[in-house]
Structures are given as C-alpha cells and as structure tokens.
C-alpha cells in the first residue's frame, strides 16, 4: 500500500496502518494483527 502502483499513489506507513486497522476482523485476523502491531516501529 505504501508504494506507487499503476492504479494508485503510494500511502504513508501511518495511513497504511490506519487502513489495515479499520479492516481488522473483516480482511485481517485480529490475533495476527495484534502481534504485528506490537512489532511495528513507524
């Protein structure tokens, strides 16, 4: 999501994390996300 693609511009890491967070339980698994969130340093 952070890189430019042919169909959209790249996003900042903060934006990416926010968007991912919004879709936890929909696209993303909550348990997996909580482990990841703890390991991410922005």
């Amino acid at each position, binding site marked *: *999501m*952070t*890189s430019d693609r*042919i*169909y959209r511009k*790249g996003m900042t890491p903060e934006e*990416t994390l926010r968007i*991912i967070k919004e879709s936890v*339980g*929909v*696209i*993303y*698994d*909550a348990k*997996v*996300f909580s*482990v*990841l969130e703890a*390991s991410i340093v922005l």
Partner: protein
Amino acid sequence: MNKLRVLIVDDEVGVLNSLTRTLRNYQKPLEVISESDPRNALNQIKTETIDILITDQRMPLMSGLLLIHEAKKLKPDLQMILKSGYTDFDVVVDAINDGHITGFIMKPWLQREIDLIMTRAIASKQERDFIKFVTKQHMLSLEDWKVVVQRLEEDEQSHDERTVRALSLLIQPKDAELYQHSVRIGELAMHLGNQFSLSKTDLRRLEIGALLHDLGKVAIRDHIHYKSGKLNEEEFTQMKKHPLYGAEILEALGMDPKIVEIVKHHHEHVCGDGYPDGLKGDDISLLTKLSPFLMHMTP
C-alpha cells in the same frame, strides 16, 4: 491374530483366580494361565510363548522384581506388569526406572484399571512386533529409513527452490514491478514469521508463498493486468482468478501443498467475503492469514 497369552504369577491362589476372572472380562479374548511358583513361571517363560507377564511383588520364593529382571533376560520383548501394594513403593519406583514394566497394578484393582493397563501393554507389544517385523525384512533398518526420509525431504526442498528460481525467471522480465514487490514481501515474511515463532520449514513456506503469491497475474491478459484505470466488472472477474491460476501452476509443478494454499488463498478475508473460496476465520491457516498483511504492508 492368535489369542495373546497372559501369565499371572502370585503365591496366593485366591488372588490368581480373582485376577484371572478380571482378565476374562477384558474386551479381547486372552489366554490366561496362572502359576503360584515364580521358578516354574520362569521356566514357562523360557519354553513357551508368553506375551504378557503379570506378577505380584511379594512372593516367598522370589520377588516380582527379580522375576521381571530374569524374564527380561530370557525374553526382551515380554510385556511385564507388576502388582503390588503401597508398602512396596521403592520397588515400584525401581521397576519403573529400569524401564522393564509397562504397567503397575495396585491392590485392590478395578476392572477398568486392569482394562486400561492391558490395552497399553498390548499396544506396546504390537509396536515392538511391528518394529521387529520391519527390521526382519532384510530391507532397511530403522536408521536407514530415517536417512531415506531425510533425503526425500531434502530433494523436495531443493525441488521447491528450483521451481522458485524458474518462476522468478519468468516473472522478473515480464513484470519487474511485481517481482520487486514480491521480493520485498518475501523479506517482510521472514520478519513476521519470526514474530510468530514459526518453524524453519514454515518460515520457508511463507517466504516462497509470499514470493509467488501473484504468480497467477502473469496468466491474466495484459490489457487487464496493466490497465491504468479502474477495472470494469468483467475485467475484475478475470483479475480475481489470479490466485487460482497461481495455485494451479504450483500444484502442477508438485510444489509443497502448504505453499500452494498460501497462493490460492491470499485474497481470502477473515469475514468470509474474500476470494476464491470465501473462507472464514480459522478456516484460513496462520501462514495464509499472514499473507494479506504482507501484501499490504510491503512498500
């Protein structure tokens, strides 16, 4: 299979009869023979086929533990069960530590305890028989088999490595952007895998799965794959086939099924509205659950 032969040794005839009755109630028919003199018992063990020995500990002529030790020397495959009371605790500890007994009967016993002990002893005997059978085949020893299995696993791994290399050679010139993205995803996969303390094998699977997750896009017609605007409904339907295409290619190449699964299901959503199978929650494996994070978080 022949009836298993069980020899019970106890100096008290009443106990012998009672235990014999208990054993007759066991789910599988057993041939139960009994002996009150441990020296005769030892002789029987030497000359006859006995599968399981049940002996009392306290006997005037010979202790149960000594009988077990002697019997072990004669017939190493004999399953042995020691019967005793609380007062012989030390003896029981010794017997267990020696590794000679498969079970221990405490007086007074219950039918279901005896059943359980017998089931365990029979399973242990069958396991030994099987190992003996395999070894006797003049084919390969257990150690040799381990080497064979290890070789096969190594072959499988190097096969997967070569497949990855070949497919990278296809993806790289065709779609450099996709290739670069996949390589970075592979790197992140290793990092995330460490967070979840995955095994070395699973880490490798995740890395390869991540590297090849969009392989199927190469099979999508270029005017759809490289369209700069929004895809229309028909184009999107075509585009959504890429996980299946990728999985089919890898399956045909004989790739590790767990890697194929990652590729096939990397667009599944935990809520069940993903594609191609609409899998939900824990129907999606951990390795596969990690893949959308990889796809979306990788620069």
